[in-house]
């Protein structure tokens, strides 16, 4: 499991410089990296660039109408952020459902995104927030939307020497409400079988609806057909039920049928339905 070398840069430029070395790989909390690396014990030429001392990448701030979350913010920190709990509760909530206290203390949002597992729990809410990712390498910097960032499960456009240095999203439209639902096999340390993030805006009628899902699509995304069928309509239990079915059908169309589809299809419909109800304050039972 041991890499040949672990570097602990204290500044971003230093980190980006080391990352240019061949076989260098960023390590944030290590909760994905360490586990996967155990499977190939003698792939030991790697240099791990431990990001832990880049303290500047570990805060949450609000500036000019945008929220910025440093990639090294841990799930525990995100879950406990009282301001975000107020403005976009589904994001801290998703973070609070990651793994266990130990994993939340160690795992980071940046690692969650960079690793690009389709079950990553913070990604669906970030998707619904229209988040953007800033990638930096020595001498270069680019900002892309989350939609452009992911290619496939465990595949992103991030180049080997690029670091995620910022995760940002604009202020939510006035009157937005959110919901996040995670379905796992147990109450803690559960890999999401399915997750759904919902953001709705509007009073009498739904002005904006965003639904994004985890653990179903080959690349993260939103369910635009279900979103569209709700816009401009008043919130209603039955309508949401229909939207759930439509959203689930859309997801299956995108993903194709797999071994798990017989289960996920009806349950995704349920979760979308419930997510919409919860966001709009309608009892779903």
């Amino acid at each position, binding site marked *: 499991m*041991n890499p040949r070398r672990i570097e602990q840069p204290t500044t971003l430029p230093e980190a980006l410089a080391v990352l240019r070395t061949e076989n260098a790989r960023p390590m944030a909390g290590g909760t*994905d*990296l360490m*586990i*996967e*690396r*155990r499977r190939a*014990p*003698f792939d030991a030429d790697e240099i791990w660039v431990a990001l832990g001392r880049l303290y500047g990448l570990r805060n949450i701030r609000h500036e000019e109408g945008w929220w910025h979350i440093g990639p090294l913010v841990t799930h525990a920190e995100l879950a406990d952020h009282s301001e975000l709990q107020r403005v976009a509760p589904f994001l801290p909530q998703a973070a609070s459902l990651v793994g*266990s206290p130990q994993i939340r203390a160690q795992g980071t949002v940046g690692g969650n995104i*960079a*690793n*690009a*597992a389709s079950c990553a729990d913070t990604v669906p809410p970030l998707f619904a927030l229209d988040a953007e990712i800033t990638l930096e390498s020595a001498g270069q910097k680019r900002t892309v939307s989350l939609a452009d960032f992911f*290619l496939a499960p*465990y*595949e*992103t*456009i*991030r*180049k*080997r020497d690029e670091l995620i240095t910022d995760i940002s999203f604009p202020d939510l439209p006035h009157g937005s409400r959110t919901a996040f639902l995670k*379905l796992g*096999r*147990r*109450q*803690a*340390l*559960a*890999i999401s*079988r399915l997750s759904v993030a919902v953001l709705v805006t509007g009073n009498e009628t739904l002005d904006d609806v965003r639904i994004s899902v985890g653990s179903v699509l080959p690349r993260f995304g939103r369910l635009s057909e279900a979103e569209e069928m709700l816009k401009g309509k008043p919130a209603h239990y039955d309508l949401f039920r229909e939207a759930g079915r439509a959203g689930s059908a859309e997801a299956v169309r995108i993903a194709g049928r797999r*071994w*798990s589809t*017989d*289960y996920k299809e*009806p*349950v995704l419909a*349920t*979760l979308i339905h419930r997510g919409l109800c919860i966001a709009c304050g309608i009892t*779903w*039972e």
Partner: protein
Amino acid sequence: MKLYPQHRRVDGIGKVTGKAIFGADQMPGHLLYGAVKRAGIPHARIVRVDTEKARNCPGVRAVLTAKDIPGAHGFGIVVPHQRVLADDKVRYFGDGVAAVAAETEEQARFAAEQIEIEYETLPTISSPEEALKSDAPLVHEGSNLAVEHRVRHGEGEKPPDAAVTLERTYRTQHAEHSYIEPEAIVAWPAEHGGIVVKGSVQNLFSTRRSLAAVLDLPLNKVQVIQTTLGGSFGGKDEAMTLLSCRAALLALATGRPVKMVNSREESFIESYKRHPYRLHYELGADKDGQLRSMQIDILADAGAYASTSQFVTWRSTVQATGPYRVPWVRTRVRAAFTNNNYTGAMRGFGSPQVNLAIESFMDELAEEVGKSPLEIRRLNAYRDGDVTPTGQQLPGKVTIVEALEAVARASDFERKWRENRARQKEAGAIKRGIGLACSYRGVSLGAEGTDAAGTLVAIQTDGSVTISSGITDMGQGAQTAMSAVVAEALGISLSQIRFLNTDTDRVPDSGPTVASRATIMGGSAAYDASIALRKRLLEFSARTYRGDDSDFRLEDNALWRCDERLMSFHEFVDKAFASGISLMALGWHKAPKTTWREEHGQGTAYFTYVYGANAAEIEVDTQTGQVRILDVWVCHEVGRVISYAQACGQVYGGVVMGMGYGLLEEYYQEQGIPRIKNFDEYTLATALDAPNIHASFLEHPDALSPIGAKSLGEPATEICAPAVLNAIFNATGRRIRELPASLERVLLGRQLRRHGIRTSLAKEAP
């Protein structure tokens, strides 16, 4: 004897402060590390093993194959055919073919991977049904039928006529013990020849016998010492024998200590599992639900080696009909060899499978005849003096109804059961359910084998005491239970006792620590030693301080004459020692006789029985298949509670383990290839999943046990799963007959399977 309401575990402080020394913590000087080259395919003939490359790897000190074994190649409690290192064939994915010792763990593992093995692959047998087909390839010479037991009870070839008949099939899965500490051992050449092996061994004397045979050494040159064990649940028997033999061979080959520790993945693929069963049940009953007959046919997956299948399935045979009067019974239990992980002892030992079946089946009968689960059990449950299908009249008090009534009352079962049933058809996604299950269980080994144990109690001249026993502690608390018995008999406090980990050179062979026999056997032996010491000491006091033996007693860490405190225990034993009194005694307890006639499965299977019941209340999300267990009410009749806190501990752990078996856990192999190798997907219940558990005990001190106590470890885990499945039926009206009741089974009624392995790390853009 008086009851100790609460006490601290004698091994507790060491464990919670990190001072306990587990197998992998051992760090003797000059240590080498061992690693194993495993088959990685389920079934093949070995054509050639090339170790050349491995020998030349950096740091390597020895590379061994079966050819280098001086004694027996195989071991096994029933059939000694499990190879220390495979010679002719590999029979499952986890079989070891060669072992390496090197200066570092990485070097050893690397070198092991360099061993080249040429195989002639053979067809894989992936289920016992396949194994028993007439044209099936053989796993071992002879036959794939590993075991067959029968019970024949009641006259006539055909079952008596019955108004109601019912026929059902249930299935259970492979389950992993999931001890928190994977297998670990250090072996080193002994001072005067022979070998010392120290590590996480459960059954030291069976491991020692195998070591002696494999190394071709007399038993007195093989010393097996136990380190503090991080759990076992029946799992550190053959799995540890295997590791011990390999480490010992490497140690003798190199003349240096060799350490071997399985990674979690190695532990998953190599270690034995709980037997999956297919259970076919047929019954005949009166129209009110009174049982008339039962025909049971069970097929178990023995996996690649015989292990303890013989005994596991035998217990199933005896207990298959549950704690119910059935006048006519025909039971057949078979196990077949396959190319899956071998299966063996695991907490419950053949009972959780049959309990799942019979307890579901009783509920299905209740449904059929329009009775409640409690009514059907009341009607059929054993009463005092009833005779089991093996022809044994139940000894002592039969408390199954008492236990059932206790959990039914505490959980308000009847009311909830009726209300939930009425709500099944109502709107709403979340449904409540409550379920009942009960069992009777034979205590200790029964007719499986010799049942005797020894415990050594040594009072020191300062009044402190050491205890050692052939019965081992694996985390279940045996040391505390035995200490409590000694403390009580000598009138001293628990804090004065130190319990020594078991060492085969220092204590008598006491058989394996299995079958919930630690308290009753080890504890009774401890009692035997303590009363011998007490007698000796009181005789001495009568002689010295004049009086009658009966005027003196030991209590509150002191010697008393009637109501007069004469002196402290410390002063007293010091005086006794000075007068030449021996302060050490070996206690020995032999269990009452059992008998068995295999042909018709008749006999006194176990010398006594315990009884217990669970009621589980749950919530089912009928739109996602999620089941939450809210409360479990538990009642066990255990003879006598030795330590209340520990008894509750057994119940809490047992229920959570049982719920994992019922809802979550499955070790899944696809064509002999393990698809689940770690705890990411082998989902144990976590603390957040654990329900409220309400434990209660019935005490009827058993005349057949010197300390009155019987068993609890296995009873505590064997009936939670059926109670939960019965509760799911109560909530939804749909019955699940296969374990685990996963999300998919609860929602769709069937399991879905992923092919291949889950990966979890990002690839980068080119």
